[in-house]
């Protein structure tokens, strides 16, 4: 290594590295899609993407967080179907998870 050691600047440099990495993630999807032509295939792929992101994020988390989390998410989805309100879904979901965890699940 020809670079001098990070030394006391280590934490700041680590934060800067995280900030750059995160900002590049934020930019690159938008930048990428402005280069890729919107063919019918790409259009359909993009249409399927939001739901895919949601499911791909949530399912493994349920698997990791356990049974009580699954019930809480189902309660939230049920609330959403009935009332179409994120606030209400969040409240019922949180109430469900708090109750279940208090009961020892």
């Amino acid at each position: 290594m020809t670079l001098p050691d990070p030394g006391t600047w280590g934490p700041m440099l680590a934060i800067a590295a995280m900030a750059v990495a995160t900002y590049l993630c934020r930019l690159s999807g938008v930048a990428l899609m402005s280069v890729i032509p919107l063919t019918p295939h790409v259009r359909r792929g993009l249409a399927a993407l939001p739901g895919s992101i949601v499911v791909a994020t949530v399912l493994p988390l349920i698997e990791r967080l356990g049974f009580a989390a699954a019930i809480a998410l189902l309660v939230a989805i049920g609330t959403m179907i009935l009332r179409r309100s994120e606030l209400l879904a969040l409240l019922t979901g949180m109430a469900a998870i708090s109750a279940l965890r208090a009961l020892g699940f």
Partner: protein
Amino acid sequence: MQAPRPCPLTQAGAFRFWMAMPPEPQTQTPAPAAPITVGGMWLGLRKVSVLMPGVIVFAVAFGAAAAAKGMSLLETVLMSALVYGGVSQLVAMELWRPEWTWGAIAGLAVVTATVNARMILQGAVLQPWFAQYRKTLNAFHLFFYTDANWLIGTRYHNEGGRDLGVLVGAGVALWLVWVVATIPGHVLGALVSDPRRYGIDLVMPIFFAAMIVPLWRGRQAAVPWVVAGIAALITAKLFDGYAFIIVGSLAGAVTGAFRDDTA
């Protein structure tokens, strides 16, 4: 400046790659950019306010974790302000150390990028909307782009909304709360010792899961989601970390892209 609208079929991918770099940002959306209004920003603030209590507790928990790891208040607030990615910041706390080498810094950057790689896909989803606006403006508001923003923006855009102010308002408001709430967490330390008890760790998953309902377009359209879910579950079993989001999402998108050929 303004190139004539090219025919999409004659534009080979490689050729477009060179063409796309100059100013002309968007070929497929002739619609002019909707104005960014203060009303839109207020709407975004209202939409995101639902999440504020959860974000506050999350930020306090991060501040407490950072204090426990020996980070100074300045470093903690800087990380919240500059990185602005809750999960990646908590993961960073797992890797935080008193002494830093260049290798450790690079490793942290890579881990951060993998945790936040979902933002790449989330940005791609809303790109057709963003493309109508100037690049500098996009570079600005994308700094505040988060899961919450993406969820709010996707629903708003699906319902026909086009005012980018909604995303700006929601993003800046959430950022401010996130940064400010980090401070009491750092100062008061172990006040929120166990955020799990109040279900704080489930705020984002609940918000994500609730999104399924407005996104629902019938069983046929949900087939890619099933593929995404299965791919994500398998990836989560095989690999630690958060690669499952990317693998699952891409699997769903690819399925969606090629399904209609056979149906």
